[in-house]
C-alpha cells in the first residue's frame, strides 16, 4: 500500500514539472482574450526559451573604434541649424514596456519638448519656422488621403454618438420598465388593501349582527345580500360545504320545488305537523263580531281596515 502511494506522489511531481515547461502551450484557447494576445504571449515564451538555450558568448565592444568613428562622423563645427537635432532633457524610463499607451505618451512628451525647444532655436538662428497662411505647396499626404482620413474621423465620431444615444435609450427603457412595474405593484397593493378593508367591514358587520340586529339597515350597501338574516340558516350550512350560495331567486325556487336532499314525503303530514297549530288562523271561516267584510281581514290584526270606496275616493 505505502509503495503505491510513494509512486503516485512521484508521478504527480513529474506532472508539475512537465506542466511548467509547457505551461503556455498547454493553456486552452479560451484563456486568451484574443488571438493576438495569444500570439504575443507565445512569442514572449519563445524568446524566453531561446534565451535559456543560448550560450551567451563573450562579447567585446570595440569602444575605442566606436568613439573614434563618432568623432569622425560628427564635425563639431557644423551649426545647429544644419542638423536641427535636439536631445531630450530626461531619458525615457518606463515601468511597463508592454503598455502601449505609456510608450506612446512618453514618446509624445519627448517629441513635444523637442518641438518647443526647436522652435526657439530656429527663431534664434533667424530662420522661419511656421509656414505662412498664404504659402501653398504639395503636402506629404494628398487631399484625397486627407479626405479619407476626415471621413473616417467623422464616421467614428458619428458611430460614437449613435452608440451613446442607443445606450441612453436603453437606460430610458430600463427606467420606463421600472416605472411601469412600480405602477403595477401600486395597483396590486391598492386592490389588496381594499379587499382587506372589505373583509374587515364584513367581520365587523357580522359581529354587530349578533349583538344588535338593529344595525342591519346601515350595512346594506356593503357586502352581498345573501349574508343577510333571512337566509342565515342556509348560509351557515353552506359555509360548512365551502360552496358559494346560489342567487336568491334560485334559492326561492329550491325552497319551493325542492332541490337536494330527499324529495319524497316532504309534503306529507307528520306527527309534528299535525300537532303544530301555529299556522292555523282561528278566525278563518268565521265572521267576527262587529266586523264587516270577509273573514281573512281579521287576520291582519295590526293593520288598518280598508275604508269604503267613497271615503277612499274622497281622501285622495
Amino acid at each position, binding site marked *: 500500500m505505502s509503495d503505491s502511494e510513494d509512486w503516485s506522489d512521484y508521478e504527480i511531481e513529474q506532472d508539475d514539472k512537465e506542466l511548467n515547461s509547457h505551461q503556455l502551450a498547454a493553456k486552452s484557447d479560451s484563456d486568451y482574450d484574443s488571438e493576438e494576445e495569444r500570439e504575443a504571449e507565445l512569442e514572449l515564451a519563445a524568446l524566453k526559451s531561446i534565451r535559456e538555450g543560448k550560450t551567451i558568448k563573450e562579447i567585446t565592444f570595440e569602444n575605442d573604434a566606436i568613439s573614434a568613428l563618432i568623432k569622425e562622423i560628427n564635425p563639431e563645427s557644423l551649426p545647429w541649424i544644419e542638423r536641427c537635432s535636439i536631445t531630450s532633457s530626461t531619458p*525615457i524610463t518606463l515601468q511597463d514596456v508592454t503598455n502601449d499607451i505609456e510608450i506612446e505618451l512618453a514618446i509624445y512628451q519627448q517629441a513635444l519638448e523637442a518641438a518647443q525647444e526647436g522652435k526657439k532655436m530656429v527663431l534664434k538662428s533667424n530662420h522661419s519656422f511656421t509656414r505662412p497662411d498664404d504659402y501653398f505647396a504639395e*503636402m506629404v499626404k494628398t487631399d484625397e488621403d486627407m479626405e479619407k482620413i476626415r471621413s473616417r474621423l467623422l464616421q467614428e465620431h458619428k458611430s460614437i454618438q449613435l452608440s451613446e444615444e442607443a445606450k441612453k435609450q436603453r437606460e430610458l427603457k430600463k427606467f420606463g420598465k421600472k416605472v411601469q412595474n412600480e405602477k403595477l405593484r401600486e395597483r396590486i397593493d391598492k386592490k389588496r388593501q381594499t379587499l382587506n378593508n372589505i373583509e374587515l367591514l364584513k367581520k365587523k358587520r357580522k359581529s354587530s349582527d349578533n349583538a344588535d340586529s338593529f344595525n342591519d339597515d346601515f350595512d346594506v350597501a356593503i357586502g352581498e345580500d345573501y349574508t343577510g338574516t333571512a337566509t342565515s340558516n342556509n348560509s351557515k350550512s353552506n359555509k360548512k360545504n365551502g360552496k358559494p350560495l346560489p342567487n336568491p331567486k334560485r334559492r326561492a325556487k329550491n325552497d319551493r320545488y325542492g332541490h337536494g336532499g330527499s324529495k319524497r314525503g316532504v309534503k306529507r303530514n307528520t306527527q309534528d305537523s299535525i300537532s303544530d297549530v301555529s299556522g292555523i288562523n282561528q278566525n278563518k271561516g268565521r265572521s267576527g263580531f262587529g266586523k264587516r267584510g270577509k273573514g281573512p281581514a281579521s287576520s291582519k290584526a295590526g293593520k288598518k281596515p280598508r275604508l269604503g270606496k267613497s271615503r277612499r275616493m274622497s281622501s285622495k
Partner: protein
Amino acid sequence: MASIYKKFTNADSSADHQQTPKNKQRIFNILLEFSIIYIYIYYRHRHLIKDLEILLPQSKKDSKLDTKKNLDVLNELAELNNCNNVLFFEARRHEDLYLWASRAPSGPSIKFHVLNIHTMSELKLTGNCLKGSRPILSFDSNFDSSLPYQLVKTLFEQIFSVPIGTRKSKPFFDHVMSFSIIDDKVWVRNYQISEKDPETGSDTNQLTTLVEIGPRFVLNVIRIFEGSFNGRTLFENPEFNTPTAVKSAIKRLKSAKYNNRVTSDTRQKMKEMKHSLPQDPLDNVFK
C-alpha cells in the same frame, strides 16, 4: 528575394567654399531586384520605403538590387551617384525586413531589424505636413548612455536631417522625427507640429500640439560594422534573436500542446493499468 532601397545623401563639407561649413544635398534612390520576386514584396515594406522617400527630399531611390551576397556593390553605386549615406532595405522570407544604415564608403554601417511597421497611409494617423519641409530631430537622452547608441544617433542625425537649401525642400519646420530607446530598441515616430487650434483654426502660439503623421516603426540593432557593408564587427546585440528562430520556437511551443496531451493520455492509461483493483471474491455474492 532581397528588396532593396537605397538612400544616399551627400554631405560634403567644403570649408574653402565659404567660411561656414555647408551640407550639400543630392537625391538618389536605388531599388534593384529579381523582377519576378518584385510582386511578392510585402506591401507594407514597400509603403514604408515610399514614405521615407517622400519625407527625405535629399534621397534618391534606385531600382532593386539583384544580389544578396555582394553588398560591396552598394558602395560603388553610392560613389557613382555622389552620395555618402546609404539606407538599404533587405526583405527576407516575404515577412522580415532588415535595414542597413551606412556611411559610404568608409563606414560605419549598422544593421537593424525593422519591427512594428505602420505606414503613412494608415487612416488613424491623421497628421500631414509639407512635402520636403525640414524636420526637427528629437533624440531620447538614453542615446548618450552607451557608445553604440551614440553612434546610431550621430548616423541618424546625418541621414534623417534635411540640410538647408536641399532641392525640393521647403524652408519651414512643421514636423518632428523622434527617436527613443525603449526596451533596448529604437522607436521611430513622425509628428506634425500643429500650432493652430483644431476647432477654431486660430493661431495659438502658446499651445503646441502634435499629430502623428507616420510612418512608425521600431528598429532593433543587430550589428555595427566598421566599414560600409564590410569590415570587422564593432558591436553585436546579444539580445537579438533572429525572427526565424523565434518563429520556430513558437512552432515548437505550439506543437508541445499536442505532444503534452498525447503523453498525458498514455501516462494516465499506464497509471490506470498499474493501479487496477484486484478481483473481489465476494463481488458476486448478492447477485
